[in-house]
């Protein structure tokens, strides 16, 4: 029963989502529609959707979850509920992991629906295992949740929180190898891209697109994304303050 408070927090966040069906619909519909749009744009260009599709399948959930989590945690901070919880016998890990579990479950549903559409009606194919694409998409969504948790500490209003998306996510997207393959980036930017989690998330899906077998590089990518995930959750926990000025 040690994790009772974590499970209660996850259940509470899911209950909040259930009372907000429009947000749940958007969580699933937005990436689904965007992937459909991408498939349509690239129709007739042989294999382009097979190249870009898996990469973006990991990135759209990351962006959506980043936004949802940063706003949700900001509301807890400004609404006083976080402060109240921290005056109670609540560990910071209970809070952070509770959120990660709740949004992780939401991310699984999201990834299953969106990749089901991609591999089905949208006609996306990968050389590697399709289910691994789903795993990477869920991992990316969790990374988005963890980054949103820690970044929300920097925001004092929802206007600011929303703007952290372009500030923290878009530069990673530009350097992730989607637009220009990372080795072809200017040297300094290439170095910088090694420090950014999205580079590994995109590379993992590229590995799945182009290799039938699971490559060592894919495993390394997944481990690095997992490492960033743990680090971002830990950072998120340290931003929760029991005492404030």
């Amino acid at each position, binding site marked *: 029963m040690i994790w*009772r*408070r974590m499970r*209660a*927090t996850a*259940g*509470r966040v899911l*209950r*909040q989502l259930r*009372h*907000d069906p429009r947000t749940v619909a958007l969580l699933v519909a937005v990436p689904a529609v965007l992937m459909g749009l991408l498939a349509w744009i690239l129709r007739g260009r042989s294999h382009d959707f097979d190249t870009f599709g898996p990469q973006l399948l990991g990135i759209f959930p990351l962006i959506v979850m980043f936004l949802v989590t940063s706003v949700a945690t900001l509301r807890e901070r400004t*609404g*006083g*509920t976080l*402060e*109240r*919880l*921290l*005056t*109670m*016998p*609540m560990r910071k890990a209970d809070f952070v992991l509770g959120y990660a579990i709740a949004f992780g479950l939401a991310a699984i549903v999201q990834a299953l629906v969106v990749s089901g559409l991609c591999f089905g009606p949208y006609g996306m194919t990968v050389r590697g295992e399709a289910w691994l694409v789903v795993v990477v998409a869920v991992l990316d969504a969790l990374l988005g949740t963890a980054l949103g948790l820690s970044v929300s500490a920097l925001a004092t209003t929802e206007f600011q929180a929303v703007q952290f998306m372009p500030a923290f996510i878009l530069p990673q997207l530009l350097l992730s190898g989607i637009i220009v393959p990372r080795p072809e980036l200017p040297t300094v930017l290439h170095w910088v891209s090694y420090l950014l989690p999205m580079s590994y998330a995109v590379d993992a899906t590229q590995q799945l697109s182009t290799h039938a077998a699971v490559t060592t590089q894919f495993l390394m990518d997944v481990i690095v994304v997992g490492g960033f995930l743990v680090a971002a959750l830990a950072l998120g926990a340290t931003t929760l303050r*029991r*005492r*404030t*000025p």
Partner: protein
Amino acid sequence: MTGRAPVSAAPAVRVEHLAVVRGRTRAVDDVSFELDAGTLVGLLGPSGCGKTTLMRSLVGTQVVSSGTVTLLGEPAGSPRLRDRVGYVTQVPSVYGDLTVRENLSYFATILGASSEAVERVLADVDLCDHAASMVGRLSGGERARVSLATALLGSPSLLVLDEPTVGLDPLLRRSLWSLFHRLAAAGTTLLVSSHVMDEAERCERLLLMRHGRILADTSPAGLLSSTASEDFESAFVALIEGDVLGKRGVPAAGEERP
């Protein structure tokens, strides 16, 4: 201080030379007092006098500049106090996108309280009829009572309530004050703040605060007689005027504040 007093005789709250500087103002300025267990104490003073900052220092959410705060024998903010001290903030801190019962059940799990506790506090704050309502759709007064109910869940030994009755109708206010008296009679120590001076008469003891300092530590009857006033509003005004005059006579450091 030599040795430890027996637990029963130890004050529930001991504040010694507490000071809190927020920005450029001394929100709490060298405050000392003790509260005995099982008493109902009012913390009164105008808005912005430092009541909330003092209360936040007690529950351990405020970074303090100097001084010590001891609750139930533990330093403020100690992990061992987290299920023994209940705190209600001025702005209701509950989830607007959950029902009343969902809110209380969640906080009950966090506090390790039973599901009977949820029903008990619903009855305490007279919200049984609204248990299935979304908190976001309740009136301000109802939402404030959900927040209060949350603090009652763990049956805390000390309750710190920041303006719990503001904005409530007179009947409800009366029923909450009688709840506070019942809790105090059962041994709970309550510190209740208000900027409505008329609430003073409902307390056993009063701490009157202005500009971050305790102006008077007295009983309702004592306040009226010492200021020769008929009502608490004029008693407080008389107290402030006396304070200002006294200060003019003997200029003290850090007096005039913006």
